[in-house]
């Protein structure tokens, strides 16, 4: 009897090498090109709008700044014309706040939720590529793609919005650290978009239903963005204090508080009583609300031994704050993606 050698496929021995990562690139692209195209279309349309609007804004701004003498009536009219763009700019800033949430919900959430909902994970996770590598090879390139697109977009937004930070033309000015615009510029916009994508991916894996995961992503992202803007950001670095004055120049004013001679904080009602005792002020104001920012009121209170402490973050901290926010959002995104991969690894069908 002749010995029969069974021809084994060479790949089947123990030293089987993994299927190369680059092969997943095509798969990821093929499956998510419509989601990516949707995100690109959204950002593209907004970019065109921003660019056209930005041309008008910069034109009006240049005319107002170049006008001499600045005190003339004609120059005042030019400044007034420039200021008509403020309302639109604020609307645009509000609209853009929703962009990372939408990208997270419509690009991030379906990546795994759709596989779970339609059962195709049973196909994908039993191919030779391996399920955790498959997950990573989807989430990382998609996350980088949406973050890069958002980053490019925020450069355009920074250019568009720059004139509105000008102190000389604009009395009720916004500062770069203001919550409404801080996260649309610098590295923050890209970082928020990446975080929204990672939230979406994890929500999709946990919830396994596209629509529910999408809604959950919007809710969680909104909560996180509000928490960061209203509470977290002002604590990135210890705020500075200034006595008996408003915060300087481009600073982000966080709070103001009057203190009595004893060092005790004074409540609004107590201040009201003090001001009632000042007939020359109370008569002029008609007894309504007390205008705290009125210089004569402040002067009166300071003269009577009260101290106004203002806490603020100086405008020079814009970039440190950007890196801090970008840093923790990047760490959070990495953590969320790692958690998603871990869930995929351990999930039993």
């Amino acid at each position, binding site marked *: 009897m002749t010995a029969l050698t069974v021809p084994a496929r060479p790949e089947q021995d123990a030293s089987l090498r993994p*299927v190369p990562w680059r092969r997943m690139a095509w798969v990821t692209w093929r499956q998510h090109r419509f989601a990516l195209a949707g995100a690109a279309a959204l950002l593209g349309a907004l970019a065109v709008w921003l660019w056209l609007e930005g041309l008008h804004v910069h034109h009006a701004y240049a005319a107002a700044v170049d006008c001499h003498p600045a005190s003339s009536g004609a120059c005042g009219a030019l400044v007034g014309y420039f200021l008509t763009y403020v309302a639109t700019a604020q609307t645009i800033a509000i609209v853009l706040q929703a962009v990372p949430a939408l990208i997270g919900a419509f690009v991030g959430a379906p990546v795994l939720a759709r596989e779970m909902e339609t059962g195709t994970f049973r196909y994908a996770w039993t191919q030779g590529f391996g399920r955790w590598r498959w997950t990573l090879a989807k989430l990382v390139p998609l996350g980088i793609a949406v973050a890069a697109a958002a980053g490019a977009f925020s450069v355009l937004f920074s250019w568009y919005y720059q004139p509105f930070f000008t102190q000389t033309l604009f009395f009720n000015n916004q500062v770069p650290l203001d919550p409404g615009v801080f996260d649309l510029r610098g590295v923050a916009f890209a970082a928020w978009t990446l975080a929204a994508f990672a939230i979406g991916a994890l929500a999709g894996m946990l919830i396994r239903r596209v629509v529910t995961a999408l809604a959950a992503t919007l809710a969680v992202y909104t909560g996180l963005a509000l928490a960061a803007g209203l509470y977290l950001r002002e604590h990135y670095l210890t705020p500075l204090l200034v006595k008996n004055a408003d915060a300087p120049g481009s600073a982000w004013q966080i709070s103001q508080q009057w203190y009595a001679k004893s060092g005790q904080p004074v409540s609004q009602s107590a201040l009201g009583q003090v001001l009632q005792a000042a007939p020359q002020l109370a008569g002029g104001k008609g007894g309504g609300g007390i205008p705290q920012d009125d210089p004569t009121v402040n002067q009166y209170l300071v003269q009577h031994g009260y101290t106004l402490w203002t806490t603020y973050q100086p405008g020079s901290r814009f970039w440190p704050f950007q890196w801090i926010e970008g840093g923790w959002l990047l760490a959070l995104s990495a953590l969320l993606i790692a958690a998603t991969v871990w869930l995929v690894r351990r999930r039993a069908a």
Partner: protein
Amino acid sequence: MNMNVVEASGLGKRYGGTWALRECTLAIPDGHVAALVGPNGAGKTTLLNLAVGLATPSAGRVTVLGGRAPGSPVALDGIAFVAQDAPLYKNLSVTDMLHVTRNLNHCFDQGYAEARLAELDIPLNRKAGRLSGGQQAQLALTLALARRPRLLVLDEPVAMLDPVARHDFMAIVLTAALDDGVSVLLSSHVLTELERVADYLILLSRGRVQMAGEVDDLLASHRVLTGPAGEADRYAERPVVHVRRAEAQAHLLVRATANDPVPPGWEAHPVGLEELALAYLREPGAAALPGPTLPGPARGRALPLDAGEPSEMTR
């Protein structure tokens, strides 16, 4: 090669508080078309998910392809799995599905896949979601076979197919098994197709293995005895698996070989695979398991049952 494509010992899987599979011990040898049969909820899908690495055991252990861990790179490479309802990316074209599968695996026989799809008249540019149910099943099977697996695992592959599509599908599976030496493990609650293709049978019932073995051995060790109904109870002490009474006659399925003596007044007939499986499924207490480590002799209770009408198992 004397290898077990799937080997389980004391394997169990619990979902929440209920056991989908319990104390499952079996060894499916290489080179077979093994059929995993049982009613709905018997644990067939659970066992297959454990074997392909989609699920992890709650108890015991399972290995594949001669001792490999399910889900390990070698196991993933050597096992092609078609899940129930043949999940495909519905918005991708057939060509894209081929391309995706090729990119996700070491080995993919593009020529084979294209030739098979041409044979089946499945248009390459159509979206997978727009194919008929039979075509989707065929596409999923083609993708699996083009990977040139050592083991092909199919979960309820023909449940959604009409009789013609079912026949065509099984013909392809059989060709792969016979010509290319692919081991096949398929689950089904449709018994009629199995007789033609399966040469190894595993019967699952209520999360436990009730019968397992080579079909030829199982058929050779069972006979149907036909005789007067009044005498049926006299043979209850024999290893009777199942009793079926029709008018004056009783049919006993007994554990016996062709050489065993037949009682006077009775006739012995060989049993068919479908009949055998049905009889065991109707008697969840009966068991026929190979190997010395397993619970030994078959137990049987002679229960008077109505003449066997076609059960839902056969559709």
